[in-house]
């Protein structure tokens, strides 16, 4: 099990728990960030 805690825009905490090796979890916010950086 792995976990990743993020702080949401409104300050609330959210923790993702992952159990599979190839997790489908991809942060929508990080995706937006990566797109921005490409621009």
């Amino acid at each position, binding site marked *: *099990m792995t*976990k990743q805690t*993020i702080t*949401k825009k409104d300050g*609330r*905490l*959210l*923790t*993702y*728990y*992952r*159990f*599979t090796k190839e*997790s*489908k*979890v*991809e*942060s*929508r*916010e990080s*995706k937006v960030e990566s797109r921005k950086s490409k621009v």
Partner: protein
Amino acid sequence: MSELRWNPLLQQWVITATHRQERTFFPPDDYCPLCPTQEGGFPTEVPAEDYEIVAFDNKFPSLRRKAPRPAVKQTGLYEVRRAEGVCEVILYSSKHSGTLTDHTVEDINNLVHVWTDRYTELGALDFVDYVFIFENKGKEIGVTLNHPHGQIYAYPFIPPVVRQEIAASADHMAKTGRCLVCDILAEEKSDGRRIVAQNDDFLAFVPFYARYPYEVHIAPREHRCSLPDFSDGEKMDLARMLKTVLLKYDNLWGFSLPYMMVLHQKPTTPGDFDHYHFHIEFYPPYRTKEKLKFLAGSEAGAGVFINDTLAEEKAAELRAATPET
């Protein structure tokens, strides 16, 4: 507005949380705030395309990590405190439909590991005395979101029901030198009529003193105080037992049975609680296939439950429900 108000008559805290009146109430299935956020879609509580299990701070919490000042001043009689604590939502999966019953044993085992981690992490907060993990399932219980989920309340005090169980356990230990729940398990095993299911590490039974007709308790055979005490094997056996009980509930009458599921474990505040024995309690609100059990005058006003059924007969019904045990 949110605060703790002391009830000097019952010697227990009441949480006021007026903002919870505004919480989301049965949104359309395609506007679920607990589903993943889809590209081009509305932002949900989870800013990811998919997830396995997620825990997050409730948007409408009764308790807050940084609690505001109480709206009223306390008096000599009426004590008031900030409603400090944590209220979390645990999403069992990104799939919108279904219930915990539909999850595989492996999925439930993953959830048990998450419960263990949340208990440890929240219990380490200096303002948290007790980590209470629970699930309200079904509209009959007052659930307002269909997406399968549970909750955690990390209280700044030990809640009264658990406080009473701890006092009874301590009293029994002082008198006999033994754990109360260990003795209850021995009695249930000896009698046998109220056992619903058992495996290597856990026993599920309708307690002798059941308050709800289909109330079921699950307890480890060995003395364990809280989830971190369990080995990985015991966690898997707990997942198997949960799956068995959940299937029995749903197969009893052929519909997904609503329930309250609560985990009772030792407080996380310093103290000697090693005499306390972990267990899970289920309270389904149905007394027959068509009839609900209501908490009425005697239950709500006097604290005396009237059970219209015999635990021995209800346990036999649950044993016969698929998977037969």
